[in-house]
Structure formats: C-alpha cells, structure tokens
C-alpha cells in the first residue's frame, strides 16, 4: 500500500524525496559498475517482473488474498543496486501512470519500500547465508527472514515519517502497535512467498540468485550473455 499525498506533511515528504534521490543515485552508480551497459534492459525487465509479481494474488482463504511487495525478492535475485532501482522505478511508474501513491509522496514510498525494504532484505539475506550457512534450507530460511524483516523495516520507516510529519492527532504508540501487529502477519506472508520464489529459481537457475554469488566480482558478467 502506497502513501498518498496529504498524509505526511510537505517538509517531511520533500526531505524523504531528497533521501530517495540520493539513494537512487548510489544505486545507479552501483548498478552501472556491476552490470555496465546491460543495466537498462536487465533492470527494466526486473522492474516489469516486480510489477507483475505484485499483481499476483496469493489466496489466504475466506475471500482474502495477499500479494508480494517484492523488495526483498528483487534484491535477493538481482543484487541490491539493480533490485532497489527496479523497485524504485516500479513505484515511480505506479505514481505517474497509475495514480497509485502520491507524486509528492513518491520520495516517502521509495525510501520505505525500495531503500529500507531492499536494504534490510539484502543485509539479512547476505548476512544469514554468509554466517549461518548457504545450503538450500538455510537460504530459504534467509529468504523468509529477509522478506519478513523487509516489511517490518518499511513499516519502521513509515512510523518515523508519521512521527515527524503525520497530520493525525493520534497517539504514536497506538499507531505503532496497530501497524506492527498488522504487518507481522503481512511480513510473514511476504517471507513465505519470497522463500517459495527464491526456492523455485534456485532449483532451475541457481546462478541467477545474486544473493548466493561470491561477493565482489564486479564488472565481470556472471555468464556469457547468450
């Protein structure tokens, strides 16, 4: 769910936009370093994938269904730079072409759903597979945790923004309690879906899972693009 305009005040929205611009600039530089001129088509197609994956409903039962937010999935599959870029582009296109999420609030949404969720997802997955183990079971547990914590990280970002620039006179602790209790469930579902998809990719093309590759082999395409 994207923050609309008018929900967080203008100064905080503009500050978040500045942070988002900085973060996206870092990711552009990082992606160009690791993917060089393959960046545009690959990140573009990954953005399309994230966009499509967000629309797929996973039925929960009783007529409700969940869907993916996708930042953790994107960074696990294509690495932090291209993954965060792809999710940011999805958010921008949603704001501009679908009126989903405000224009002034785009910075807030990019900070929460791309920078924080992607950053947390990458650190958790990378840290877990490095220090706990990178076997299949461990990688799937890492993917679950990355998905789960990426959602809680995004909620944390939203709560900080709400505390600084929220226009509603409700007690912050009530909002924190409500948001976290709802998003623990959403995060658990995000984790399960993320782990299932990462597992599926690992069985057919394990070489495509960027989170499992040996670090720092920048500027060398992983496989001859054929």
């Amino acid at each position, binding site marked *: 769910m994207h923050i*609309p305009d*008018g929900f967080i005040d203008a100064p905080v929205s503009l500050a978040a936009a500045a942070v988002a611009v900085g973060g996206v600039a870092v990711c552009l530089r990082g992606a160009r370093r690791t993917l060089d*001129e393959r960046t545009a088509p690959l990140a*573009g197609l990954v*953005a399309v994938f994230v966009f499509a994956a967000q629309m797929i409903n996973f039925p929960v039962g009783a007529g409700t269904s969940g869907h*993916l937010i996708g930042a953790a999935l994107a960074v696990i599959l294509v690495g932090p730079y291209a993954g965060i870029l*792809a999710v940011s582009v999805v958010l921008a296109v949603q704001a*501009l072409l679908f009126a*989903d999420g405000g224009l002034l609030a785009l910075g807030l949404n990019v900070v929460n759903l791309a920078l924080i969720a992607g950053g947390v997802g990458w650190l958790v997955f990378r840290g877990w597979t490095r220090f706990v183990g990178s076997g299949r079971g461990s990688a799937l547990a890492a993917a679950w945790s990355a998905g789960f914590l990426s959602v809680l990280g995004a909620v944390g970002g939203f709560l900080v923004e709400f505390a600084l620039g929220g226009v509603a*006179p409700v007690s912050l602790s009530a909002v924190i309690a409500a948001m976290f209790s709802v998003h623990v469930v959403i995060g658990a579902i995000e984790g399960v879906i993320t782990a299932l998809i990462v597992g599926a990719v690992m069985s057919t093309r394990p070489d495509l899972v960027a989170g499992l590759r040996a670090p720092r082999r920048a500027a060398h395409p992983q496989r001859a693009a054929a």
Partner: protein
Amino acid sequence: MGDRPGGHVPGEFLHLPGHSPVHRLPAHVKIVAAFLTIVVIVLTPPTPAWVFMAYTVVVVGVVALSGIGPATVLRRMRVEIPFVAFAVLLPFVGQGQRIPIGPLELSEPGLLAAWNILAKATLTLLVSVTLASTTSATDLVAGLQRLRVPDLLVQIVSAMVRYVHVVSQEWSRMSRARAARGFTARGPRSWWVLGQSVGTLFIRSYERGERVHLAMVSRGYSGRLPVLTTTTAGPAEWARALTVPVVIGVISLIPLIAAAGTFAGGAS
C-alpha cells in the same frame, strides 16, 4: 504477444487517448504543473473549508476539461479507500478535546485531521488521476527525459513500460496452462505452485532482458539511447499548464493575507 515481442510501445496503463487541451500539453509540462499543484495543496493549513472548496472547483474544472468521464475518475480513485478508512476512524480514536456530535463524543482535533486528510488526499489523487489518464507511457518517458532525469533511469523506465505487456501476457499464458491442468488457486496450499510459476516468470523475464540487451547491442547500442523525438514546450504551453498551480497558490494565500489584514487592522 508472440508475434510482436516488444515491437510496439503500448500506450495503455490508465491513459485514455484524447485531444483535450490537457491531453495536448507536453508530458514534462504536465508533470511539473501537477507536482506544484500537489505541493501547494499539501502545504495548505487545514482550517478554512472554503479554500478547499475553491481548490475543488479548479481541480474538477481541469478534470472536466480533460474529458475523462466521472465514472472512470471515481473508479480510479479506489486506491484511496484504506486511507479514507483511517481518516474516518480518527474522530473516534483521536486525542484532545471531545465535542458532542449527536449521540457521539468525538475528538475535535481528530475531526479536523480527518477532514484535512480526506480533502488533501482526494484533491491530490484527482490531480494524479488526471495526469495518468491524459499522458501515454511513451510521452511520460519523453517527459522524464526533458526533465533531465538521469539517462540510465529513463532507459530503465522505458524498458519497463515497453515490456510490461509482454511479461503480463507471459503470466496469463502460464495461468492458462495451469488452469488447463486443473489448477485453481485456493488457499495457502496453492502457494507452492504459484511460487514455482513466479520463479519461472522471473527466469523468463531476466533471460528476456539478456536477449533484449543483445538485440540492442547488435543494433549499435553502447549505453545510450538515441533521442528520436523531442517534445518542446513554448511559453504559451507552460503558461497554460502553470495556470492551475498559480491559481491554487493564489487561493491558498487569501486566508493568510486576510489574517495579516485583520492583525494589522486590530493593531492600529
């Protein structure tokens, strides 16, 4: 899609083709005007209701000028529903002084905030819906280019809007194949199958990205795309588009000037 993979740029999304004065404005002019309008609306202090009424007249006027039907606009505003729900709760859960309204005791700051959020979110969403409905994906990409968005980012957006239909049709073919084998998504037990499918969708998307890259390289791509269309905007177009944020801005200033006037009058 198989016959024309990425061969044409789909102009769909929310875009409704048309020839209204709003449609005809260049995309970058519209983006700037919409953004400024939204900033002014969000910056407005919540109290004087008539200011928001005046905004509504201006914004609804632009929507009418663009020729998007009211039913379409309302349908596209559904994304606001969760936030409307939050706003409706505010008078009940809000803090501060309580005032009796009918049989209920409601929080006064809660009511004010609910009104503020509803008015601002609705008006700004109307602006966004108008922008999205009158701007094609192709024009948007050209607009971002004109606004000096970094070239690489524009290329990613361009690749995304070009292939979004290809990938979503890839997904509908996979759904059809699953359905043909008797699969219905029902409850969490179907997640494993859906997860496998989404994993496959990722691999196909990624490999398509690699093929697209090679096809681009074989046509001489070296990291930059040639600029084929240049949309330029003359002062007349800027003036027409910026009328909206300027009018909204002037309206927003009236209560401030009035307040300053009363203050000065009281002091003398």
